[in-house]
Structures are given as structure tokens and as C-alpha cells.
């Protein structure tokens, strides 16, 4: 009981301190982020929401901003040598970490040895960087990356997550656990406080090599409930709500508020209904095509998704490397679909089961629309939602789905390989049903290709091949939707949640 009383007293004291909180200072914004990643160590994270904050604290050798162009960051230049198996980086001079420690070749070597060593082995990021064999220090500002084989996506990967450069001395001082909660990087903002599950505060790094940011402070609040995040935005408690916390259904409410606006951009996430190609009526390629043609995807995007998405022809969006703008989705043609189903011997009233993620309210509406279209073609679709993690980790990988199942996928590298390999290669977790030797061969050929144009061509062939086999019903590429208060200026929406705020200012 005494403990209880003490705890209550603590809470009361905690609550009381909040009373004295000053009004929002000039040059400060508050961002609502849907999830506390739990650790700020770049090698520990597997959540895209890590990046919405940490992009401001950490930097990699390369940087890819909202325009998707890869530009120098902590490396000023690089050259690819030895048929792509060695990359030499020239490092930026005069950069220091937030604790004053210098950034140099040793820090780069330390970062990757840590990522590829025992500490990195505990986390999920190591698997993304296994093409790096060794990092060799040439001199203070030059490092060579020796690769096991050419890795065309590596430069992009160096702009994100596990490849963020970390301070060796600081980590030696505070340990890995200390670094988790008190991260130090070279970015435009430094973290000043972090309360697990509640929020974190950043302050401008006045010594930033790219020039001091326009904002003096940024507060992040972790708000997982979309309606709560939007209520905070409407009442002025937060200035920016980041994806995926803005449900399409809330857009009209925000549009109607003169202080708020929606800013969106094509994101990495694509959504499809994938087919069980091994059994049921969907084992027949022509049936799969007929089902695709029976669904008016344009109408779904315009009505259910309020136009905040684009119809796709392959399982990738327009920004993905490997995207072919000339590729057309199968057209909506109900009569032809019916004829094709009849020809394939599918009886009227044949049934399919569609598995969806139970917590995805928007997609549940989409699935209902799909089911309605299918019923017009004479196919009875039943929707069976699963708890999202159960669907993703148990039902799909073990091939226990119905004839169709929801797959949403958003690789932050915006490289079609990331999606295609996972979805189509034999034996991959996300490909429980299909095995196609030609597809496997194509997927493997493109991986070590250093000629970008050549590689892009193969990726486009893969997309065309998969579409021709109708391995999924491609639905749409969803926008990354940000809702902001209009007092926030120069806000550029990041397609991939890597939200850099150094150019942002407030009125």
C-alpha cells in the first residue's frame, strides 16, 4: 500500500509539473508519430517510424531526401572499383558528433564492424548489409568498402537505418544500452530527452555542417491512435501528423479546417490481393486474369481512397527503381471477365476466400468493394480478416490463406528487387505457393548487375512476367499522407517517413 501511495504521489507530482509547461516557443514544432521504436540505436530498429525522428539525429554516408535523389552526406564522393566489388568513399571533413567527438574513417569502420558483428547480430538490420565484407581505413578521410559481390542497392542502403554512422568513443563510454536511450549522431538536431512510450525532444545542432536548422526545437509525441493524433492536430497540440495516422476518411475533416492542410506524396507502399496459385479456382492463370479484370480498381481509388493512391500494373509504385511507365494494368472489363471465367470452366457461384489484415479499416472497405465486383462476375467472395501479425507471420508464410490474401508492401529502398525477390522467388517467406524457375533466374541475374540501365531492364522484365502470370491482383500505390498545421512552413512530405525537419520553419 505504501508503494501504491508513493507511486500515486509520484504521478501527482509528475502531473503537476506539466501545469507549468510554457506555451509553444517560437521556432518549435510538435510532431505526432504513431509508435515509439523503443530504441534509437540504428542497428536495432525494424520500424519505419524510427526514421521519422532519427533521420534528424543520424546521418549515413549518403542521403536520399524527399525527392528520392541520392546525394552525398557524410561522404562527399565515392567511386565504384573492381567491377563493383569495392567502393571508395571520401569523407566530409570537419564534422563532429553531437558530443564533440570527431567524425572520421575510424568511426565509419567502427559503425560497420558493430553492425556486422555480435551487437548487430541481435538486431534485424544486419541482414540488409551482408554484402559488405570489410571496411578498410585508407586514411583519415578515405575508406574502402570491400564487398562479397557487387550490390547495386548498397549506396541507397547506406542512406538509411543500420548504416547510420555512430560515435565509437561515446558508445564505449555509455555502452549499447546507454546509446539506445541517449543517441548521438551528426545530424541537424540532437536529442535532448526521451521518455519511453511518451515522446522525445530534439534541439537544433547549431554546429551542423550543413548549417543550423531553422527550428530551435522539435518535440515528438508518440500517439498510436489516429483519431487521437488528429484531435491533437485540430486542437493545436501537435503541428504535424505523419503517416500512416491520417485515415482517408478523415481527409474531408482536415480540409474543412482553415488552419490545417493535407500534404501527400506517392509513398513506397503498394497493395495487392495475391493469389493462391497452387489450389482452388485461382490455380488457373486465366481465372486469375478474369478476376483482375472483374474489379474496377480506378473506381476503388477514386471513391474509397479519395484519390490518395494510384492504380498499379505491377507490384510497385511509380517511384520504384524498375517501374515501367508504359506498362498498363489489365483493363476493367466485366463482360470479358465473365466470358473468361466461363471458358475456364468456373461455375456460377464458385467461391473464393479473401484474407485481410484485421486492423486495416480502409482495406476492409476495399476488400468489400472487390468482393462486390467479383459477385457481379458470378464469384462469391467471403472476406476473412485475421489479426495482422497472425496473418503476416503465420497464415501467409505457411500457405494457409484463402484463394486471395492482402499483401501491402513498402520497401524503403524504392527498389523493385526488394519487393520482387521477396514475393516471387521460390522458397521466400512471402511466396508460399508459387515456384517458377524462369522467374528465379531473372531475379538472381539482376542482383549483382552494376549497369543501372541493364538492371532496370531486367527488373521491368520481371514485372511484365509476373503480371503476365497474374501472380497477384495489383490494386494501388498509396500516398504518404501528412496532415499539418498551416503555421508550419517549407514542409516537404517524405515518401518514406524519413522526415528531415532542418529546412522547416514556423510562422
Amino acid at each position, binding site marked *: *500500500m505504501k508503494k*501504491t501511495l508513493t507511486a*500515486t504521489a*509520484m*504521478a501527482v507530482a*509528475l*502531473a*503537476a*509539473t*506539466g*501545469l507549468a*509547461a510554457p506555451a509553444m516557443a517560437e521556432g518549435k514544432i510538435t510532431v505526432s508519430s504513431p*509508435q*515509439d*521504436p*523503443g*530504441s534509437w*540505436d540504428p542497428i*536495432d530498429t*525494424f520500424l*519505419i517510424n524510427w526514421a521519422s525522428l532519427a533521420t534528424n539525429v543520424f546521418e549515413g554516408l549518403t542521403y536520399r531526401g524527399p525527392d528520392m535523389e541520392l546525394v552525398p552526406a557524410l561522404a562527399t564522393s565515392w567511386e565504384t572499383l573492381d567491377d563493383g566489388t569495392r567502393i571508395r568513399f571520401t569523407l566530409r571533413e570537419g564534422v563532429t558528433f553531437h558530443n564533440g567527438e570527431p567524425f572520421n574513417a575510424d568511426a565509419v569502420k567502427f559503425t560497420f564492424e558493430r553492425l556486422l558483428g555480435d551487437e548487430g*547480430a*541481435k*538486431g*534485424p*538490420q544486419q*541482414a*540488409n548489409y551482408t554484402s559488405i565484407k570489410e571496411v578498410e581505413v585508407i586514411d583519415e578521410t578515405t575508406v574502402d568498402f570491400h564487398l562479397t559481390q557487387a550490390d547495386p542497392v548498397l549506396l541507397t542502403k547506406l542512406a538509411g537505418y543500420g548504416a547510420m554512422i555512430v560515435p565509437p568513443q561515446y558508445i564505449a563510454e555509455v555502452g549499447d*544500452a546507454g546509446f*539506445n*536511450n541517449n543517441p548521438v549522431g551528426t545530424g541537424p538536431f540532437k536529442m535532448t530527452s526521451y*521518455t*519511453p*512510450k*511518451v515522446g522525445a525532444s530534439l534541439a537544433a545542432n547549431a554546429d551542423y555542417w550543413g548549417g543550423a536548422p531553422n527550428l530551435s526545437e522539435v518535440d515528438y*509525441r*508518440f*500517439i*498510436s*491512435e489516429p*483519431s*487521437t493524433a488528429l*484531435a*491533437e492536430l*485540430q*486542437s*493545436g*497540440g501537435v503541428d504535424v501528423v505523419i503517416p500512416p495516422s491520417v485515415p482517408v476518411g478523415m481527409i474531408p475533416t482536415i480540409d474543412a479546417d482553415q488552419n490545417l492542410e493535407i500534404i501527400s506524396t506517392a509513398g513506397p507502399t503498394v497493395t495487392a490481393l495475391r493469389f493462391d496459385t497452387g489450389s482452388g479456382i485461382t490455380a488457373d492463370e486465366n481465372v486469375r486474369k478474369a478476376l483482375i479484370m472483374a474489379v474496377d480498381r480506378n473506381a476503388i481509388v477514386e471513391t474509397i481512397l479519395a484519390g490518395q493512391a494510384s492504380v498499379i500494373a505491377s507490384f510497385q509504385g511509380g517511384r520504384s527503381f524498375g517501374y515501367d511507365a508504359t506498362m498498363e494494368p489489365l483493363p476493367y472489363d466485366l463482360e470479358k471477365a465473365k466470358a473468361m471465367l466461363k471458358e475456364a470452366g468456373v461455375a456460377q457461384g464458385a467461391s473464393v476466400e479473401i484474407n485481410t489484415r484485421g486492423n486495416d479499416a480502409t482495406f476492409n472497405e476495399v476488400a468489400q468493394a472487390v468482393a462486390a465486383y467479383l459477385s457481379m462476375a458470378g464469384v462469391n467472395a467471403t472476406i476473412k480478416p485475421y489479426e495482422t*501479425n*497472425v496473418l*503476416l*507471420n*503465420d497464415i501467409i*508464410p505457411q500457405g494457409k490463406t484463402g484463394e486471395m490474401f492482402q499483401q501491402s508492401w513498402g*520497401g524503403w529502398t524504392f527498389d523493385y528487387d*526488394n519487393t520482387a*525477390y*521477396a514475393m516471387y522467388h521460390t522458397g*521466400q*517467406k512471402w511466396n508460399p505457393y508459387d515456384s517458377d524457375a524462369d522467374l528465379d533466374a531473372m531475379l538472381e541475374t539482376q542482383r549483382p548487375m552494376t549497369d543501372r540501365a541493364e538492371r532496370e531492364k531486367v527488373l521491368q522484365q520481371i514485372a511484365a512476367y509476373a503480371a503476365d502470370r497474374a501472380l497477384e491482383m495489383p490494386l494501388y500505390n498509396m500516398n504518404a499522407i501528412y496532415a499539418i498545421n498551416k503555421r508550419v512552413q517549407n514542409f516537404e512530405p517524405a515518401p518514406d517517413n524519413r522526415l528531415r525537419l532542418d529546412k522547416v520553419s514556423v510562422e
Partner: protein
Amino acid sequence: MAGFLIKRLAQAIFVVIVVTLIVSVAVRMTGDPALMIAQGATDITEADLERIREGLGLNEPFITQYLATLSGLFTWDFGRSFLGGTEVSTLIAGALPATLLLAFSSLVVSILISVPLGIRAAIRRGKWEDQLIRILSLVGLSFPNFWLATMLVLLFSITLHLLPPSGMTGWATLVMPAMTMGVILTATNVRLVRTSMLEVMQSQYIMVARAKGLSERSVLYKHALRNSAIPLITFLGLQFGGLLGGIVVVEKVFNWPGMGSLAFDAVSARDYPVLQSVIMILSTLIVLVNLIVDIAYGLIDPRIRTE
């Protein structure tokens, strides 16, 4: 009294062990956290998964993992969260006071409203005031808490700009969550106070008190209320358990950083250490509160003390 306490403590420990055992087994049936952590990575191999499992301590025998969690109750060391590796004790030290603050505030709100209303309804039995109070409490009982929460936010935060819609940054942020929880408890408590008061007021000692010529005020507050408090206290003890369970939704809506939010996130992330610890602590608390309620009887009613 000592024998009684020892017996109750043994029961309490048994309950906590059973509850945590069930939770630990059940949570492991929901799937593999390593798969969840590796969800976004392509080319993940079984060896990678095994490494992640080893890092999380999942390859230890179940009983070792369970005993480690259980011993956390005494050593205040519950291991690390699977999601990022923060110490579970750090997370709980942040969340437990927040939940207790909310739970006690809700009880206070509920008592402050339900006792006067319940008494009023009992005194004015059958009159329009009684009818109104009973109808209102039925209306209150019918509100789902998430709906009430949303309506309060809509009114006080978005329309009137009086209260912050979420978070825990001051007294202002406590008002709406405590009201949401409190109003729903109140609905039941009003009816309880009313029934209990009616029963007591028909008893012989109240008639005697009246016959002695005591003032109505003295009869009501000194004799009747004290005796009708017993069922209310029992019920508040039971309610506390329900309160801690029901708090998940309210904490989620108001982004209140308590045990409910922690449990919710832990379920979706298959974060075993956090979920087990949260449930273990909450169940211990519920058992503890019931124990306190039993002791409180004795203090209020001398008849129970002598039994």
C-alpha cells in the same frame, strides 16, 4: 487476524502464479517474435531468425523464462523489451504511476458523484428525483467508454478548446480520462448506494434512532451511511480489477502513458517480457486491493472485527 492474513496472502500468491502461468503460455501460442522483428527484411534465413531468438533469450527452456519473469516481482528486474531493448522495469516505472493515478481519480470521481446522488434517490424514493437519477444512471451505464471518450474530446478539445485531447502533461489532461472511467463506474455505484441505503433505512436500529428523536441528518449520515458503505466498499474493491482491465481502451484513446497502453502495444508487438510483467503486476495489485478491502471491513464494521 494473523492467521487470516497469512491465508489470504497464500491465496494471493497462488492467484498471481496461476494468472502469470496462463498468460506466459498463451502469449507464446500467438507466434514467434523473431518473425515479427524480421518482418521487413528480405532474404532472412532460419539462421538469422535463430540468432534473433537467441538474442531475445527465447531459446531458453520455458520454465527458465517464466521463473525469470516471476522473480522480477521481487527483484524489480523484468528483463528487456523485445521492441528496442528498453528495460521493462523502466517502462513499468513510467506506466504504473500513470495508471494508478487514473484509476484512483476515476474512483474518486465516481464516489463524489454516486454517493450524494444515491442517497438523494433513496430519500426521495419513488419521487421524480429518484426516477431521474435512476434513468440517468441507466443512460450512463449504457455508454461504451470509447464513445464517451470521443464525445468528450469532440466537445472539450475540438469545439471549446478547453482541455488538451491527450497525453499526460498536467491536471488538465487528467480530467477527461478520469471522467470517462468515472462516469461509467458512477452509473453502477449510484444504484448500489441507493439500494443499500434503502435497505439500511428500513432496519430496526434506524427506527430506534428515529424513535430516540435524533435529527434526520444524524440518522442519515451517522447511522445509515456508515452501514450502507460496506457493500459499496466491497464493490469498489471488485471494481478496481475491472477498472484496471477497462483502462486499456481509455488510455489508448487519451494516449495516457499507462499500463493499458503498454499492454496494448506489447500484444501487437508480441513483446512477451512487457506483457507478462504488466499482467503480473496488475494481477498482484488487484489481489492486494481485495486484501485491503477485507481489512477495511473490519475497520468500518465492528461486528466483522469480532467475528
